[in-house]
């Protein structure tokens, strides 16, 4: 075994942190994957009820939210290009837009859930037990759990974006070192991908 001298300094390896992020994304995919399995099993067992319940969701809000997430996904992707071109100002703007869009998404979600709650549709509600079939209760149970979990991910993603913006501001993220920005982007795209599946499953297929 030969030996060579190498400097002792902390080794900076952006690819390592990128793989780390990807691996984390894989676990997230499987987390939602399990939910999708549950969803498809119950859809298969209760086709009519899922059909009926799906019609009660507002496709328009769903579609608006889809557009919002897609646009925000683009802006954050662009911010990576911007930082690599050295354009700090544009990076910050793009990140800010992403953050605002995320907020708008949540506000929409809030009103959507709120209107359901006011109609007595929420997990464990007596109203549902009395007026809905078992399949419909399942549909809404899954709807709340899955979109709720997705909303939690939006919140985490927003936290990451804020952190990134702070680091950009402190010049810890710059043209040569931008792995945190890249990773926040990856995470945000994951949130987008999950929504890409949630949207048709809950709002479109009747």
């Amino acid at each position, binding site marked *: *075994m*030969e*030996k*060579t*001298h*190498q400097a*002792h300094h902390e080794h900076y*390896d952006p*690819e*390592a*942190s990128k*793989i*780390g992020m990807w*691996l*984390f994304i*894989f*676990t*997230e995919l*499987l*987390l*939602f*994957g*399990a*939910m999708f*399995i*549950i969803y498809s*099993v*119950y859809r298969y*067992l*209760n086709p009519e009820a899922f059909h009926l319940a799906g019609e009660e969701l507002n496709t328009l809000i769903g579609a608006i939210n889809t557009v919002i997430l897609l646009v925000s996904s683009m802006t954050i992707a662009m911010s990576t290009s911007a930082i690599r071109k050295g354009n700090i100002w544009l990076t910050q703007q793009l990140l800010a837009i992403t953050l605002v869009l995320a907020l708008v998404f949540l506000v929409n979600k809030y009103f959507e859930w709120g209107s359901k709650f006011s109609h007595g549709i929420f*997990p*464990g509600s007596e109203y549902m037990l009395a007026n809905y*079939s*078992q*399949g419909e*209760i*399942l549909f809404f*149970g*899954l709807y*709340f*759990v899955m979109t709720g*979990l997705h909303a939690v991910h939006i919140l985490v993603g927003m936290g990451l974006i804020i952190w990134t913006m702070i680091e950009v501001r402190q010049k810890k993220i710059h043209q040569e070192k931008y792995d945190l920005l890249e990773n926040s982007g990856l995470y945000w795209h994951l949130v987008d991908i999950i929504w890409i599946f949630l949207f048709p499953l809950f709002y479109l297929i009747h």
Partner: protein
Amino acid sequence: MQESQSAIQASYLRTPGRFKGFLGWVTSTDHKRIGLLYLYSIATMFFVGMLLGLAMKLELVAPGKTLMEARDYNATFTVHGVIMIFMVVIPGLPAVFGNFLLPLMIGARDVAFPRINLLSWYFYVAGVVLILIALLFGPGTPDTGWTFYAPYSFKTGTNMLPAIFGAFILGFSSILTGLNFIVTIHRMRAPGMGWMKLPMFAWTLYGTAWIQLLATPVVGITLVLVALERLFGIGVFDPALGGDPILYQHLFWIYSHPAVYIMILPAMGAVSEIIPTFAQKQLFGYKALILSTMAIAFVGYLVWGHHMFTAGMSGTAQYAFSLLTFLVAIPSAIKVFNWISTMYKGSINMQTPFYWAASFIFVFMIGGFSGLVLGSLATNIHVHDTGFVVAHFHYIVFGGVGYSFMAAIHYWFPKIYGRMYDSHWANIGWILFFVGFVSLYTPMFWLGMKGMPRRYYDYLPEFHGANILSTFGSWILAMGFIVIVFNLIRAARSGPPVGPNPWNGKTMEWMVPSPPPVENFEEIPVVGENDGPYNYE
């Protein structure tokens, strides 16, 4: 001698970081210290779990009540199972030996994300604490069995929420460890160390890490759903609301079957390191062993349904799961054959770690063969949920992972502490342990075939004889265990110092001083063309 004493002084054991003493340990991001933190915390939990096992055996020594009420018995096997599975054998080898050895084996200074590594230990502790809270406070110790089957798990009046949440956090810890290892293996190998030069133990850690990453989230979300079911009644697994309890079982086993391979793969890896060293030979069929590791990891993901043959699945699914189960036995068979072939024409040095490794092969075979009985449809129907299953998994989990853990601790002990234990006492401990083990679990096979169900607090008089034998075995086992533990503790404090390589090992970790310095390698080694995984000098 003088030299080894100073190695101990200069090692990670003594060099403090920012803090001294206890604080220096719990804030250290050094992979070796984290490995030892895991060792001590896992050993503690192991000890608690074993005491509970002992208590169960004492209860079962005679029909009727001997020691505790049915309620306590149910809580005992639940806690025993949860501790052993989630806190001992799943983190077990990867967290202790993986952390300690992986960077040493691949020529790195640390894992890829040292701080995340420490964080995952904190998650482990937090999970343990939460589960202990569930045990000691609130409306009663959880009594669902470690499988948390719905709908019982959200009907029981006991303290399920903290237990579920604790298991969830333990899962997080496991995911972070896996993530760390994969990145470490991808990015931190010393220059020149190609994939085909990784030691087997590193390969098995890699396979295990992938399963940890891809299976754990499934049980995570499932447990969350059970918690939500208890809190809000969302109906996902509640038959009264249209849910399907069998779906819960699918999701649970989608994780928990791969989890058994999370446990066994690193155990196999450790044995694959020990046998070459004591036979003074390179590993026979290195490539076949790598392939079989990956095959177990992959196929192991698809056989979960063999735990559900009587649950009410469709016949087609039963057929498919049985077939796949038999396929997953093949890579294990390949491993056994290669280990034994490694001994062929070797120069075998009979030392304590080798005793453990050889007895590992023996008990692993018994556990594996009983797994085949369980994997076959007709026979599973008869022995499912009986003592036979209990015997199977103790043979293969305790026999497999436990023996491998013992082998590993005796093998790497000089590397970890720079000191040697008394091998005379170590061997006495081994023989007691082995005899106790066999007489503890073998009667359970018989009991299962005669039809004694598992999780039974009480039994009919016809099962009495075998239960006495089994209880008796647990005492011998306990004696062996005490001998082993005292021997090791004494050695860690005051055993004679040894040089860097007492066993004449040929893998990279033996090339550094024992115990290793904080930095591991003064210079990052460069692996040459002709250096293989098993021929560093």
